């Protein structure tokens, strides 16, 4: 019994906004199954009462002086965009035609 099905991989790809092909789904389902099998070994480890580590070297409350500095110029920020229009990033229509 595999840990992860082709359908689950397709669902995860949709959640991650990846338009994967049928061939990729076939390949990924098998490969991810092998990887997830190896991860099941973690269940052997007794972690009762163990605090999770989210950062290698924990720092608490990192502050700095609030000094105004010039921000990235608008032109520079927009320069890398695939499509820009009147100082904005242009995107495909989100809403339907206005009534």
């Amino acid at each position, binding site marked *: 019994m595999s840990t*992860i099905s082709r359908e*689950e*991989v397709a669902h*995860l*790809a*949709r*959640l*991650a*906004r*990846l*338009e*994967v*092909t049928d061939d*990729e789904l076939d*390949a*990924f389902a098998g*490969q*991810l199954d*092998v*990887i*997830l099998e*190896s*991860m099941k*070994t*973690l*269940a052997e*480890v007794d*972690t009762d009462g*163990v*605090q*999770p*580590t*989210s*950062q*290698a*070297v924990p*720092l608490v409350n*990192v502050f*700095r002086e609030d000094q105004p500095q010039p921000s*990235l*110029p608008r032109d*520079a*920020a927009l*320069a*890398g*965009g*695939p*499509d820009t229009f009147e100082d904005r*990033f242009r*995107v*495909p*229509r*989100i809403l339907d035609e206005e009534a």
Partner: protein
Amino acid sequence: MSDRIIDQTAAELSAGIREGRYTSVEVTTAFLDRIDAIDGTVKAFLHVDREGALATAAEVDADIAAGKETFALAGVPIAIKDVVVTKGMPTTAASKILEGWIPPYDATIVERIKTARMPILGKTNMDEFAMGSSTEYSAYGKTLNPWDTGRIPGGSGGGSAAAVAAKMAPLAIGTDTGGSIRQPGAVTGTFGAKPTYGSNSRYGLIAFSSSLDTPGPVARNALDAALLHEAISGHDPRDSTAIDAPVPPVVAAARAGATGDLSGVKLGVVKEFKEGSDAAEPGVIAAYEAAVEQLVKLGAEIVEVSCPSFAYALPTYYLIAPSEASSNLARYDGVRYGLRAGDDGKHSLEEVMSLTREAGFGPEVKRRIILGTYALSAGYVDAFYGKAQKVRTLIKQDFEQAFESVDAIISPTTPFVAFKFGERTGDPYQMYLADLYTIPSNLYGGPGVSVPVGLSEGMPVGLQVMGPVMGDDITYRVAAAFESTQDTLLADTAPEIEGK
């Protein structure tokens, strides 16, 4: 000793430029010409900036002629892994999704390289978004190992390692999330250092796994790496995980190590690595054990330490890193930079995002995004991501306990020598095993260096030296001590590459 400029170490080049034996323009030209001659074969670079590098070199020469003070590595050229953003210079992270992108700012470490006035030769190839151990996952073709062009140069930083190994650059920048500086160093016979997490700024480093990513030096020996380490390290208010503490004295440590005295130094060998050594090739184990004997002759004491949770480091890493990656890579949506696909007036914004990501990401990146999405999804997050974070705590505790009785921990850097192209791309898990020995220090946060120690099957083998958090100096000292036992550095014995 050769008189060729490209055979000199960074320390020798720095002294030579300062003392007027050659100019920075001569030095920089020598490396650029070397790139022109052989990079058609090795393919270590994604972008070369001859004009920019020579302009910086000319400035340094003018300053030295005018008797001005210069930084330690002023005029010594450097190559930078393409995951580090460089203002005005293309940066792709070896992904199609960032093809043609010109960053509008410099990473902090690039600012420091520019402050030190090191000419930037160009950007080096890597596995896409630093995910891989062979550089085969670059969207722009593979880099060849200068020792055997049928084999991988390691990864993800195969380009930086190959550039230094083939003497196309005296120094390079790498980044290490699970071994991406140390493993390429080991398989190309070069020196690579992953500094303490948080001691080198991540600002301007294209994020893969934010709690693990660490930029660091790639060089031919410990002293050169230490000089670069000190040039780029130190607190940065723009990185909230940066440690606000003095940089460990790695240059002094490398010089101390070069005297060849390790008396009083206790080196730990991990019992569980030894027991699990069926994953390591016999030739790698033999070269490693010969190196350990040399360290003992220098006065080091070998102490066995037990780190039972290291057995779980690989699955822990492959849950945490893809989880963070799936979140970090959400920013590639075809809106603010890079590629946009399917924007034909018929597809919705969401469809355009999905088509863009499908067209722009390669197979390993997609696998890890899906894996991370799985590990973070409702119903699985406690069993996978949450569990991995707790095992990470146990791995940290293993290190902390070991460092109560030893000064540093040693191991082979990677279980096998450079493998042949295509050997492990079909089975991602076999690729992941390359990082078996390097991953623990990423999860812990402490430093690790890889120093070339010998050959197996004619291919380089690396010794890894791991230290406690902010104890980078001891790792350099031990590595430099090993180098002092060698008549010739392994990095100086790579076969000559023929240009095309």
